[in-house]
């Protein structure tokens, strides 16, 4: 057994042995657990959008410059990346815009006749536009479907030869 593995073994044994002792001690002043206030969820969601955009950008870049990925299906996949990237950007903007709106900015809230109250501002218009993010999301998923279908048909054709 190597020296490092032996060290790890000792650390695990000591940790398991010390944990009950620590739990039995005074915990009020330890503050081991951190509380999560309300905006954290939004921040995490927005960060998830940014991470998603980064992942899509990477996927686009790799499929664009990888010499072996020359099938037509990859072009559709890259289009999917662009559209979904834009959707993420729009959704990110929509979430941010919503944070600047209050109940007074809506008329007949929670009703099918709901409206954005005048006077219209950039944030209000931006919010109303981002509410229709499916105009990007749905075409993105459609191109993903077409891309996968193209790959599938190509493989079928190869097998039939």
């Amino acid at each position, binding site marked *: 057994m190597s020296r490092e593995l032996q060290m790890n073994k000792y650390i695990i044994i000591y940790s398991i042995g010390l944990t009950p002792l620590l739990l039995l001690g005074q915990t009020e002043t330890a503050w081991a657990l951190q509380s999560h206030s309300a905006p954290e*969820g939004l921040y*995490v*969601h927005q960060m*998830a*959008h940014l*991470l*998603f955009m*980064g*992942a*899509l950008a*990477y*996927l686009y870049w*790799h499929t664009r410059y990888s010499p072996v990925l020359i099938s037509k299906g990859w072009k559709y996949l890259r289009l999917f990346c662009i559209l979904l990237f834009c959707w993420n950007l729009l959704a990110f903007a929509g979430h941010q815009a919503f944070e600047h709106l209050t109940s007074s900015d809506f*008329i007949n809230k*929670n*009703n*099918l*006749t*709901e*409206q*954005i*109250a*005048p*006077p*219209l501002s950039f944030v*209000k*218009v931006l919010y*109303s536009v981002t*509410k*229709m*993010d*499916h*105009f990007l*999301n*749905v075409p993105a*998923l*459609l191109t*993903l*479907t077409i*891309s*996968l*279908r193209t*790959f*599938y048909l190509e*493989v*079928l054709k190869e*097998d039939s030869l």
Partner: protein
Amino acid sequence: MTALPLLPAVAVEFFGSGLAILFSFTALWYAWALVRLRPDNFIWGFLFYFCIAMAAFSLSRGVGHMVRIFLVYSDHEPIWKKLSPYSGGFNTMLMISVAAVTIYYHKGLEAYKAIRAKAEKLTEANTNLATSAEQLRQLNSHLEEMVEERTRNLSESEKKFRNFFQNSKDIIYFCDINGIITNINPSGIRLLGFDAQQTSVNFHHLFNNANVLERYLAELHDNGSVSDLEMQCTGKDGTTRHILLSANALYDQHGKIIGCEGIGKDMTRIKTITEQLINQEKMASIGQIAAGVAHEINTPLGIILGYTQLMMDDFTQDSEMADNLKVVERQTTACRRIVADLLKFSRQSESEKSRIDINRIIEEVLSVTEHTLNLHQISVIRRFDANLPAIFGDAEKLHQVFINLFNNAQHAMQDGGKIILQTGKTVQDVRVSVEDTGTGIADSIRNKVFDPFFTTKEVGKGTGLGLSVTYGIVQEHGGTIQVESPRIDPTTHLPSPGTAFHLRFPAIAKNNTNDKEHQ
């Protein structure tokens, strides 16, 4: 400023959510189908997981939106307030999942490429190994057959070339750098006339002419080959052979000449025939000239002789003038005899031909000359064919043929010897050979012996017309005469000193009754 209605946005949100779920699951189905078709393909595997995450995200988000619209617009907002954090949390988690799958793709793809490259190499190595194993197996199983086939082919090839070597009518030989013959075919042994058991024969020593040998060696050395070189060699039997030689030099791996291989064609017969044809043409030309000269001289000689004889009547026998006229008459008569011989040579003299037995003609000549021959210690050996067919000829002229030949034989045997007379027949011809054991005829003059006035005798002892007349008479009879020196002994078939004249006359067919003809 008017308010901005949100109903269109809500409608887009509701139906868009449904379509998003539909498309994301359709994409997932295709990804699943791809993975089913290519389970080992990493990229399709990645897309499958990506689509799972996207479908889960679309489902979570779409359902969330639709539930929100349903609850909020049906006055159940408090319920949505409770569900909303869960929906948002799911959405966040699934977005992170999609991103994680994509990031994982990078490392996964690298690993997949590395594994695939190694797998391809391994597959290639396996394929090569399998191919080699198969080749080895086939080689093993067919080795015996292949060896047999190769051996058979080699044997056939060897047999073919051996047959060619053995049966060729030309000389085929191989010799080393010093000219020692290492291999020669039977035709070569026969034509060059040496013993098959002879262990060491130097090809260079067979050349009669040193200049030809020098040229042969120089061309082999300079050009690596010799083409159509005419060489003369003398075999063990002493006969001179004319060989048309083509040879190639043999080299070792360093390009150094180690010997040569060659083919020689025996041209002796062709050369002899050519010489005979040339000789015949020459004799015909000389004959025409001789006939012209003889005719022109004959008349004045007749006039000189006539007037001389007339003048002799005018003087007494004992007078000096009469003596002088007798000298003129004698010399003129000698001239007329020469002219007569020239006419015989040129076949211009008159003939009286009849059915003749050549044996009898020879006996008649011998009855006159044999005594003289015996006095010169020359014995005559007769080997006559008793059933010889008759020929059609002039007896007197044929007498002269044999007289001339016996005279020549006697002249060639000053210290005595033998004259061997042999007659024989073929289907159409009567053949006569007159051989002597004399000094023979040198190669350089053999072609001239039938020329008029060519003689080896001292001046005044011969006119040089004897063999010319003989040649003319034989030609006149439709026959041929050939000289052979040194002669081949008919009993031993070996070259022997002396000369042989071979005569051939056309025989008369048995049903031919026309036995006399005047020309």
